[in-house]
């Protein structure tokens, strides 16, 4: 028996779309001194995808959390079908058919896929549910939505981000008979996964739901949205309707100042810094082993490694970080072969790392900003005095300079790194790594989840590092990253590296190299 919501869908579909299905009136919300939302008025129509765009900190998530009953507004009303509704808890939202997919996942990592779905699939008043019954319902919903799910018994913590997100979306879809909120859903997705998601969203729209789509990627918004609202510092600053023609205007509305086009200056290529010769890794239960990967990166250039996530990117990063010893093949750093058994050796050989998952791999979130600036072997050594005592005074002034130089916005050096926005976390990591003067910089997914301004900053910083003579390895699933920054590009597909492409790169050729997947196995 399919649970929940089918009747609700048909009833909303029957309704005319002129009157807004959902509206907010005069919503304000403050956090201490920060005014997250300032008297926001908005109408959302059934059968439309309404994009809310804005820089990080604009208040998008806060507004959505209010609609999802997770946060209460200081003032203002939420109207559903013209009626003011009380949204005091997520349960209220659930009852009204409003559900949200969070920017940061809200799954229980140690539980399996089925277990994570079980609660959602249980209806009020249902006390017991067999594993088999749940599995059947999951199957039903997976089919109804066309979402590809990972094996039901695998623990969620071991899934790829894309798979985890599909799970979140499925969970929200089951509840969202009227309003589905997607908070920056594409931030973690590959281009293919993004396409799948868009197809799904289009289908949902035709069912008469309101789909609220949060993003700061303008190209996506253009492809998907029927209406766009721009938030800046808690206020609605612009509206637009499809078809969107002038993206530039939206970008300016988002950032609040004119945007200059930026393109990377051509590389001044020096000697060979890094070479991989037929590097293969062992297969493990998740991910894709590398199969005889070879490439060379020279000082001053950015070597882009494109590809759909899950084709060996994680493995390649781990090899270059020294946490995954290759099964065969050789790693050469400036003409010397190395077989690192720990990151320490590579760091000492001049490698800098911008890890794919900055919250988990790049920072110790509970530690202070200051301490995170020291989280690098070379830097630590630099501030260690006799008896292994750390010179906090010097370290502090060093951190202060970096904060200024890289415009990291921090409350103060002693607040936890967790309190920084994603863009500022990435700035911190970039500052830390670049100040250690790496000769080789390995950056994996460096703009994932970052807003427009922060992304531009990452581009400039990475290009700057190359200009200063570093060999930059850019591993990214984001084609914009690759096309903007790379001097040469290769594609990773099922653990194998394609021949190298040299700009001008034909995106279609790139797409073809990346997309052997479409016939193959998408996980």
């Amino acid at each position, binding site marked *: 028996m399919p649970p929940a919501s089918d009747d609700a869908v048909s009833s909303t579909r029957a309704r005319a779309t002129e009157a807004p299905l959902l509206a907010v009136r005069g919503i304000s919300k403050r*956090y201490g001194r920060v005014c997250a939302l300032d008297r926001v008025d908005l109408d959302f129509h059934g059968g439309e995808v309404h994009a809310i765009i804005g820089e990080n900190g604009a208040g998008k*998530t806060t507004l959505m959390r209010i609609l999802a009953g997770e*946060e209460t507004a200081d003032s203002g009303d939420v109207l559903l079908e013209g009626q003011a509704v009380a949204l005091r808890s997520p349960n209220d939202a659930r009852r009204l058919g409003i559900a949200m997919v969070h920017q940061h996942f809200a799954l229980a990592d140690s539980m399996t896929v089925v277990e994570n779905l079980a609660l959602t699939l249980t209806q009020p008043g249902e006390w017991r549910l067999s594993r088999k019954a749940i599995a059947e319902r999951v199957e039903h919903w997976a089919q109804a939505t066309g979402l590809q799910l990972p094996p039901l018994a695998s623990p969620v913590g071991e899934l790829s981000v894309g798979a985890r997100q599909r799970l979140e979306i499925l969970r929200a879809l089951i509840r969202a008979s009227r309003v589905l909120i997607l908070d920056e859903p594409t931030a973690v997705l590959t281009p293919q996964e993004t396409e799948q998601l868009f197809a799904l969203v289009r289908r949902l729209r035709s069912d008469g739901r309101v789909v609220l789509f949060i993003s700061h990627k303008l190209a996506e918004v253009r492809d998907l949205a029927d209406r766009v609202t721009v938030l800046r510092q808690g206020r609605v600053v612009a509206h637009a309707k499809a078809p969107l023609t002038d993206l530039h205007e939206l970008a300016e509305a988002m950032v609040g100042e004119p945007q200059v086009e930026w393109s990377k200056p051509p590389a001044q290529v020096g000697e060979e810094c890094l070479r991989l010769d037929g590097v293969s890794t062992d297969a493990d239960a998740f991910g894709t082993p590398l199969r005889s990967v070879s490439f060379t990166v020279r000082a001053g250039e950015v070597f882009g490694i494109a590809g759909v996530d899950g084709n060996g990117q994680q493995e390649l990063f781990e090899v270059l*970080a020294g*946490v995954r010893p290759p099964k065969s093949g050789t790693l050469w750093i400036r003409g010397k072969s190395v077989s690192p058994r*720990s*990151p*320490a050796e590579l*760091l*000492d050989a001049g490698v800098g*790392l911008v*890890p794919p998952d900055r919250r*988990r*791999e*790049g*920072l*110790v*979130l*509970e*530690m202070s900003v200051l*301490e995170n600036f*020291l*989280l*690098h*072997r*070379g830097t*630590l*050594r630099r501030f*260690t005095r006799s*008896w*292994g*005592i*750390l010179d*906090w005074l010097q370290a502090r002034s060093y951190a202060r300079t970096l904060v200024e130089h890289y415009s990291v916005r921090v409350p103060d050096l*002693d607040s936890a790194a*967790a309190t920084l926005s994603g863009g500022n976390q990435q700035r911190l990591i970039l500052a830390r790594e670049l100040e250690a003067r790496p000769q080789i910089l390995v950056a994996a997914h460096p703009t994932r989840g970052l807003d427009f301004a922060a992304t531009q900053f990452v581009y400039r910083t990475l290009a700057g590092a190359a200009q200063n003579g570093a060999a930059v390895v850019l591993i990214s699933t984001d084609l914009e990253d690759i096309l903007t920054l790379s001097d040469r590009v290769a594609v990773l597909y099922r653990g194998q590296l394609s021949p190298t492409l040299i700009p001008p790169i034909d995106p279609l050729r790139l797409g073809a190299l990346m997309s052997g997947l479409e016939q193959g196995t998408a996980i």
Partner: protein
Amino acid sequence: MRQRIAELVPSLLAVALALAVSAAVVWLTGSSPLVAFAALLEGAVGSRDSLAEVAVKACPLILTGLAVALSFRAGTWNIGAEGQLLVGALAMAAVAQVGGSMVPRPLALVLGLGAAAAGGALWAAIAAALKLRRGVNEVIATIMLNFIAAALVSYLVQGPLMEQGGRYPQTDALPPEFVLPRLAPYRLHLGVALALLAALVAQFGLFRTRHGFELRAAGLNAVAARLAGIPVERRLFWAFVLSGAFAGLAGGIELSAITRRLYERFSPGWGYTAIAVGLLGRLSPIGVVLAALFFGALDAGSNTMQRTAGVSAVVVYVVHGCVILFLAALERWQRNRSQGT
């Protein structure tokens, strides 16, 4: 500084709630909580004598609390302070047995307490090596080692180390050379000063040195620490060993300053109370000292409470338990609140 104070809030709140619950328990048993707590307070801080007693009771808790704090900071769960303490005491007793009155006092104390620390460290190293080499969960390993240590003490005091003349299952009294000097006419002894010194050293080591920094980073996020070039396993191993040394030292000091003999029920469970001490002290050495003093005061005061107010001393265990429960709950609550963004 403001953050430091903010960190105290959960601990103070947990203590307040725990005291409230135990007051309710006292009231339910038909006594007056007011009278009981007044007696408890009187027993703990009513006189210089009792203040000294609090410090004495706190001493093993400070050291074992440090042991817990250190290992938890490194992201490993040393539940074995109890066993490490016993092995430490055993090592000191053995050294004293062998050394007898041949060595002069300062040397005897250094040797004896050194042996105690080494014994505890060794006992912890077993668990750490099992974890790093074989992937054995350290919680299970340390708990098992606690039982083994208790059994070992039990066997030795009934056999090889049993007192001359052999009337009771206990070791000979330590030769006077091995006894820590008193600091005052009360039971206050040099070991208390040593424990405080250990706390200062730990505080400095954790927050002012590179190894301390690396240990904390490894404990909070091993993945990020490893990518930063920190030898996570090595830090973890040494944190564990040092943790064992602190616990072993606790055993040595208690043996040397208070009991002078080792016997089966030597420890009233310090190594377990230590977990509450470590958590209440928020895993900071200074916090551990404060928490240990609190538990020491409860312990010292409970006897007076039993005598003068007629309320069973067992009530303090209600406080112990509630403190941990409330701390865990508050932590959870705090975490949920801060997950807004």
